[in-house]
């Protein structure tokens, strides 16, 4: 193992302690941790929502929940998982590692970065506060008009529409931040085609959000205006077209699912080479197919609308476009298997979850292809078959990938390894529980069970499969208890990891665990893709790897500290902490909350705008770094 320093040991992140330090932090690593912990909490909440749903559906004519409670729970489960769990957990990884992986010290706009996090947190809390004031949104996470316009005096869907718009602002700010970072802040020698795949996927995702979010934002504004100001966008009596909502929503909604999956694919693309001890097979093809998926993803949105009566030309066209997108997806899977092929596979927990991702995503991807077959989709759409499909790609895919990332990068965050034994238990329980829950749903859908239904009758042949799914959900729950337990005990007592516990390939493994606030004492110069790997290993005539030094684990390339101050810390100016990002985002949410309760809410809108303006002025006038 490499020589350890004080910085390598233990679970304390370098930097100031205390709540105020965290509220005012502009360090991308701390912001990443905030996203991760918040996402985990929301994940547990959404998981409880799912368990309640499954308890209600365990048998026919369930009486665990009323229809009203059920409709709120499934709406919030979807909303939470998409916007408050998967997107933030991807943001957590991107925040923490994108700058390090390109050799930078932070993102382009550190305070804007903090702003994105706080806006996400406050918006999520605002949406959840609706549970306590009359009920949570209950119109499904897609909020189809005109159902979402009914009963404007009930504010549930106003929480939903305003909350989503606020979350969209957070994402657009973060996306602009990451794009500017990648395009302008790569270190010397880090050309675009030497960037890790994870960075590429984050870049594609940022562009997807920039170009898709405004579409749903317009739809949400239209919905809010219809509900609260008598506008007529979706009022069919006046000639409004409900299908306009669906188009505006899905032009966002479809790229959104690629936003959810691509970072996880990036993480898998990082883990597989490290644990196979071989480079990623077909790096340019993996990168390019990720970009292709993003691009083509803008052309398939109406495959969510095959039963809406668009007409045969649109249906055929979007069906074919949807089939096309399967090709680059397949390319990635084949390249991943090619990475493993001929390698020396270490089947430790990160690798298990990455392999699990591949297997589950193949299933989910194939069921997705069956959706592209338009006539078949008229049976599958809005049934449990679709629920099976998207859980296979989003849980079996995205969640497995992000969990793999946690096991992979936990040592870098904390300096300690997660327990392998518990990790394996977690993996197998999750794999088994997941398949027990969602595989039967294919059958339920084919047997005619629609989705978003609070109960079902007996005698339809659905009882057994629903019971099996509920039992599987309980197994998943247990697996996550194991995970949480592992996180807690390993943070305290896990084995010390050192800077490079996995014999990694990318730049984050060249710096201490956890990293100093400035990441690199000296900004590195990069000469190749997987530059760190090439510092450790050369290739012989047959192309086999040959260690340059016998010491495994990067003592060679660990970032050396340069002298400077009395405490041995290099004299690097980092952006100073600031209170204004949190303040501004708080003001925005206060204003948003007021919009839910117009007309007396105008007071809250005024107060919120005042707070925001205070925050923005302070933000623009304060210097970015203060003199030491």
């Amino acid at each position, binding site marked *: 193992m490499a020589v350890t320093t004080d910085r390598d040991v233990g679970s304390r992140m370098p930097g100031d302690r205390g709540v105020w330090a965290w509220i005012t932090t502009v360090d991308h690593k701390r912001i990443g941790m905030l996203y991760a912990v918040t996402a985990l909490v929301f994940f547990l909440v959404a998981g409880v929502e799912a368990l309640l749903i499954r308890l209600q559906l365990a048998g026919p004519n369930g009486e665990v929940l009323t229809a009203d409670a059920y409709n709120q729970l499934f709406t919030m489960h979807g909303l939470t998982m998409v916007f408050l769990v998967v997107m933030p957990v991807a943001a957590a990884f991107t925040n923490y590692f994108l700058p390090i992986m390109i050799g930078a010290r932070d993102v382009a706009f550190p305070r804007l970065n903090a702003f994105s996090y706080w806006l996400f947190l406050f918006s999520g809390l605002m949406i959840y506060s609706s549970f306590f004031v009359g009920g949570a949104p209950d119109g499904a996470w897609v909020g189809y008009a005109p159902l979402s316009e009914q009963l404007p005096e009930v504010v549930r869907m106003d929480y939903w529409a305003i909350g989503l718009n606020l979350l969209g602002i957070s994402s657009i700010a973060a996306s602009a931040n990451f794009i500017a970072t990648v395009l302008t802040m790569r270190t010397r020698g880090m050309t675009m085609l030497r960037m890790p795949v994870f960075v590429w996927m984050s870049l594609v995702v940022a562009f997807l959000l920039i170009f898709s979010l405004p579409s749903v934002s317009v739809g949400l504004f239209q919905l809010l205006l219809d509900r609260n100001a008598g506008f007529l966008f979706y009022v069919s009596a006046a000639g409004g077209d409900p299908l306009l909502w669906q188009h505006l929503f899905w032009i966002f909604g479809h790229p959104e699912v690629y936003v959810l999956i691509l970072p996880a694919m990036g993480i898998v693309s990082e883990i597989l080479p490290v644990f196979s001890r071989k480079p990623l097979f077909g790096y340019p093809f993996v990168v390019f197919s990720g970009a292709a998926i993003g691009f083509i993803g803008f052309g398939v949105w109406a495959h969510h609308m095959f039963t809406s009566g668009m007409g045969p030309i649109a249906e055929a066209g979007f069906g074919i476009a949807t089939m096309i997108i399967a090709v680059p997806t397949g390319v990635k899977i084949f390249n991943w298997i090619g990475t493993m*092929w001929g390698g020396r*596979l270490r089947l430790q927990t990160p690798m298990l979850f990455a392999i699990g991702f591949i297997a589950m995503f193949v299933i989910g991807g194939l*069921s997705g292809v069956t959706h592209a077959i338009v006539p078949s*989709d008229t049976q599958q759409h809005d049934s449990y078959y679709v629920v099976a499909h998207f859980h296979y790609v989003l849980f079996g895919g995205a969640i497995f990938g992000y969990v793999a990332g946690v096991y992979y990068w936990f040592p870098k965050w904390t300096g300690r390894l997660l327990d392998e034994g518990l990790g394996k238990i977690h993996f197998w329980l999750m794999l088994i529980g997941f398949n027990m829950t969602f595989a039967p749903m294919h*059958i339920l859908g084919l047997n005619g069970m629609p989705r978003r239904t609070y109960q079902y009758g007996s005698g339809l042949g659905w009882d057994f499969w629903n019971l099996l799914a509920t039992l599987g959900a309980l197994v998943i729950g247990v697996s996550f208890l194991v995970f949480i337990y592992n996180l807690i005990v390993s943070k305290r007592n896990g084995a010390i990891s050192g800077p490079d516990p996995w014999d990694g390939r990318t730049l984050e493994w060249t710096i201490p665990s956890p990293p100093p606030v400035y990441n690199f004492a000296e900004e590195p110069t990069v000469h190749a893709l997987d530059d760190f790997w090439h510092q450790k290993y050369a290739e012989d005539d047959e192309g086999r790897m040959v260690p340059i030094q016998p010491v495994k684990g990067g003592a060679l390339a660990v970032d050396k500290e340069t002298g400077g101050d009395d405490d041995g810390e290099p004299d690097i100016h980092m952006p100073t902490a600031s209170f204004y990002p949190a303040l501004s985002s708080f003001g925005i949410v206060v204003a948003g909350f007021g919009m839910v309760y117009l007309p007396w809410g105008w007071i809250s809108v005024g107060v919120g705008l005042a707070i925001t303006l205070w925050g923005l002025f302070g933000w623009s006038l304060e210097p970015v770094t203060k003199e030491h």
Partner: protein
Amino acid sequence: MGLSACAGSGPQSAIEPQSPQAESINNLWLLVYYIAVVIFVLVMGALLYAIFRFRERPGDDRQPVQLHGNTALEITWTIIPAVILAVIAVPTVRGVFDMREVPTGDDVVNVRVTGHQWWWEFEYVDYTNAAGETLVTANELHLPVGREANFVMTSADVIHSFWIPPLMGKRDVVPGRITDLSFEPSNVTPPGQPIFGQCAEFCGLSHADMRMRVFVHSEAGFADWVAAEAAASSIPTEGPAAAGWETFNTVCTACHRATVAAEGGVETLGPEVTIVADGVTFVSSLAPNLTHFGGRTTLAAATYANTVEHLAAWLDDPPALKPMDPERNDIAAGEIFGMPDFGLDDEEIAGLIALLKVWE
């Protein structure tokens, strides 16, 4: 997905087709499913092989060849899936256009469907009832075997979806617009074993309880049904049913319609709501037509069997049996969110039950 093979059957199953249209969809599904299974086996086989063959064992100190890629392989595994998809695209596109064909001719049974929160309305435009209006019923669809049925559909409020899986894929019903669907039932449904259908687009509180039953008759059976349905119902003059009629005429006709043989002739009571969508006129109402309610096998949009117990419970407190929001009803504006508890006493309920039993 291998579990699909042992999926079993049910009255609402898409993989037990009861029409050539559903069968064609099912065949296309099976073709793609088998291809998917083959691909799954091949890919998983490669993955599992790689795991077992190349995993690190104790003392294993192989240094793997640092292969970066293989362009020929990339091209191959891009082209082969593309070709497979191109092949599948052909029957897919053909299927899309086949589904759009609208059957015409005298043999076709034309039904106009109006989706409501939370029940289905069926208007048989080829037939008139004793009052000279088109035949309207609710929630239970009757069709003749071997003849095409053509559905022209809209919604009175929010988007619903008309789905009878054994007979056809679903199609949404959208307020202000027309959508259409057609299929030809292949088999007469055995007595007491109708085909099941259900709303498949989330439409609020009782989305799960917006169900249908489909009865496929022989030609003669269908003719009998039409004749019975077209007849006016009688107004009882004695016994509890007569009291029930009084209750019906005062309370129920605010929302429900019924065609009865009154003294002055046949008349239809209850509100008539005309919906025009894309130039097509739908004869609708605020609640299901009850003229021949006694002959229905289910109530509350096929959520309960039509027994005396269930009917009594329903009339006593409808929202207790089916989640609804009748406090928000605005009859004048035509916005109905369910049937309220009218506070009927046991006598009134008994009277209504007797009346509805007469109205078979």
